[in-house]
Structures are given as C-alpha cells and as structure tokens.
C-alpha cells in the first residue's frame, strides 16, 4: 500500500481531533461537547454536503451512468443486511442479528463526509449525485432487517409484534427513518442546491465552504468522545462481534470496488460508493431499531458501528479503498 496516502490521512488534523476525543475519554478528562452543539455540527455538515451535491448535480445533469451507480447503491443496501443477517444468526439472537444487519446495511453520513473531505484534499473529483446515493441507502436495510426479523419470529414461534400493544409496523418505522432529521436535511439541501442559481449558492460559501473543514474537525473531536465512551460497552462483546465490525465492512467494500471496476465508475464516485457500502449507521438505524426491535441490544450494535467500524473506516479504510481504486481504475 502507498504509505504516503495512509500517513497523510493519519496526520490530517481532522483525524487527529478524532484521536484527541478518544484520548480525552481514556484519561477521563471532563472534556465534553453539549449534545445540542453536537446536533448542530452534524446538521451543519449535512446542510453543506447536501447543498454542494445538489449544486454540482445541476451542472452535470442526469445520465445513464448516474442511474447505474444509484442502482448499485440500492442493491447493496438490500444485499448487505441479507447476508449479514445469516452470518450473525450463527452467534446472535434474532433481534440482535436483525438490528446489526440493518445497521451495517445502512450508511454513515459522517464517514461519507470524511471521505468527501479526503477526496477534496487529494484533489479527486466526484459527482454531486452521490449525496442522493447516500440518502437512497438509508431505508432499504431497515426494511430488510425488519422483514427478516418478522419472518424468523414466526418461524421460531415467537409472538408477532403486530399483535402487541406498542407495536410499530414496518411502514411506520421506515417513515420514521425517512423523516429522520438528518435525511430530511440532507435531501432538502440537495434539492435546494439543484434549484438554486450558482450566484446565490456562492453567497453562502463563507458558511458552507470556508469553515467546513474546521467544523468537520470539531465534529470529529465529538465523535472521538462518543466512540471512546461507547468502547467500554464492547468489553463484554464477543470476539465474533469485533471481527464482524471490521471484516464485514471490508467484504462490503470489496464487493463495491469490484462492481465499480466492472462498470468503470469514476474514481471519486467509486470511493464514495465503497465507503457507503463499508460504513454502518449509528444515527438513523439505531433510532429506528429502538422503536421496531426494542429487545435488540443497542449497547451492542451502536458501539460496533460507532466505536469499531467508524474509526476503522476513517483512519484506514478510506485511504486503503482509495489506493485500491487508484490501482484498478484508469
């Protein structure tokens, strides 16, 4: 592997602030970012990425290639939870298997934003439509996870949830996931970016571009704090869970890289597609799973995605996938 890409990523201040967050938890510092500030930072990043993606799509327009990439994104969002579920069933109960499968089938917006930052620093172009790919990948995994849980619940003669008070239908859960603030904001900004004129989008540049990297670094500090706090929950997790958190994302990334190679997807778009397939949700899906599969252990599937898969992807995964894509794509 080209060590320079990895090293440059490792000493990038954005990534270093993530480690600072982990370090602060390790030394039991009282460093904390108020939850409302965290929420603001995440919304800010989604606002910027959505707007930028929409503005870029309005320039490039739609074509068959874009539809192919979007189709791959949706197919992967359906396939990943399917095979993940059967791998997980070997060791976990029905609820945990379905929730983890949905978590890994869905996507992490922050990993996606970090990958965009990585591409910008390496001056690699990418299509604005990838923002739409990210939004499209959010819900299918939730549906697959819930359908599998329902099918197996009936098979294992457990009472179907629909007959119990407090039960929530798949339709309701998917509606909740799609109405999640993050999804509404990024898709709303994306549409605003498409319909707005270039000059009006440019007037927002001091807010959406000039301070973007600083805000991302500050947000990753917060993510480091969160990941560090969730790490302790993994002390009781099995080695299988830890291995799954790294190996399955890598397998998902390999499939995405293979598809990108077969369809000759542009390098920047291929990296974003790979990162989307390799990432795991820790915002929208856990909230949906908490409602639909409350017996699944959130203390397991959130730390797996937030404390293992997310750091793995932003520190090693992104430069590794980029290196491979550089080797195989012209």
């Amino acid at each position, binding site marked *: 592997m080209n060590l320079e890409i990895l090293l440059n990523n490792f000493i990038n201040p954005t990534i270093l602030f993530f480690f600072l967050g982990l370090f602060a938890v390790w030394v039991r510092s009282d460093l904390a970012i108020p*939850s409302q500030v*965290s*929420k603001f930072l*995440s919304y800010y990043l989604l606002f910027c990425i959505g707007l930028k993606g929409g503005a870029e799509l309005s320039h490039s327009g739609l074509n068959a290639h874009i539809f192919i990439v979007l189709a791959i994104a949706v197919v992967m969002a359906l396939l990943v939870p399917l095979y993940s579920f059967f791998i997980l069933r070997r060791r976990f109960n029905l609820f945990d298997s379905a929730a983890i499968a949905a978590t890994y089938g869905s996507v992490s917006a922050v990993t996606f934003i970090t990958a965009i930052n990585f591409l910008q620093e390496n001056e690699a172009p990418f299509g604005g439509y990838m923002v739409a790919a990210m939004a499209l990948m959010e819900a299918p995994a939730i549906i697959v996870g819930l359908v599998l849980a329902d099918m197996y619940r009936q098979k294992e003669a457990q009472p179907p*949830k629909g007959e*119990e*008070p*407090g*039960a*929530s239908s798949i339709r309701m859960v998917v509606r909740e996931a799609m109405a*999640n603030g*993050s999804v509404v904001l990024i898709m709303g900004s994306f549409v605003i970016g498409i319909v707005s004129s270039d000059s009006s989008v440019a007037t927002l540049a001091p807010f959406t571009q000039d301070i973007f990297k600083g805000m991302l670094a500050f947000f990753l500090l917060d993510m480091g704090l*969160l990941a560090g*706090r*969730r790490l302790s*929950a993994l002390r009781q997790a099995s080695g299988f869970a830890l291995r799954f958190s790294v190996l399955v994302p890598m397998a998902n990334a390999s499939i995405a890289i293979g598809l990108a190679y077969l369809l000759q997807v542009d390098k920047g778009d291929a990296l974003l597609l790979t990162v989307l397939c390799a990432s795991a949700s*820790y*915002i*929208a899906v*856990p*909230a949906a799973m*908490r*409602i639909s599969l*409350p*017996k699944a*252990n*959130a*203390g397991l599937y*959130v730390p797996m995605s937030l404390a293992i898969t997310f750091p793995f992807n932003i520190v090693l995964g992104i430069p590794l996938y980029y290196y491979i894509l550089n080797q195989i794509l012209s």
Partner: protein
Amino acid sequence: MQAYKKLEIIIPKLESRLLVKLLQNNGIKGYSYWGGVRGSGDRGLQDGEGLSDTFVNACFVIACSEEDFNRIKEKLRAFLSEAGGVCMVSDVNWLIH
C-alpha cells in the same frame, strides 16, 4: 380531595408517541412528560449521549382514576414488556379546585 392513582412511567424516549397513543386510546388524556431522562436498568445504561434519542429515556407522570388504571393495566404491562421500562403506581389524593 379525591382518591387517584399516580403512574410514573419511564420508557425509551423513542417509544413516547406509542405510549401517548395507548393512553389516549384508553381514555387517559392528561399527562406530564420529561424527555432527556438518564439512568440504568435491565436494558443497559441510558446515558443520553449520541446524535439520536437511542440512549435517552422519558418519564411520564399520570394521574387517573382506579377505573382508568384497571382498564389500561394489562395493556401497559404488555407495552413495557416489549418496549422496556418501568411503571410505578401509587395512591394519591387529588386536590379538587
């Protein structure tokens, strides 16, 4: 003064809407509510951390007649068994005004 039952219900915040629906469908219209409740129970630590409400609880305080309570009791039990949470019941007096 009038004899009432006071219910203190702590559940995952994300289930709040379903609980409200359950209460209202069973004739209990009034409640007080706190979001952002933290604590630990048999479903682990709810520390309020994170970008979603996955690890946050909510607390409902409800005053209802014994008749209302008896009507909702079993449904509430089933709800708590599925969603997780606790319900504490006490006898209180309601100051009529």
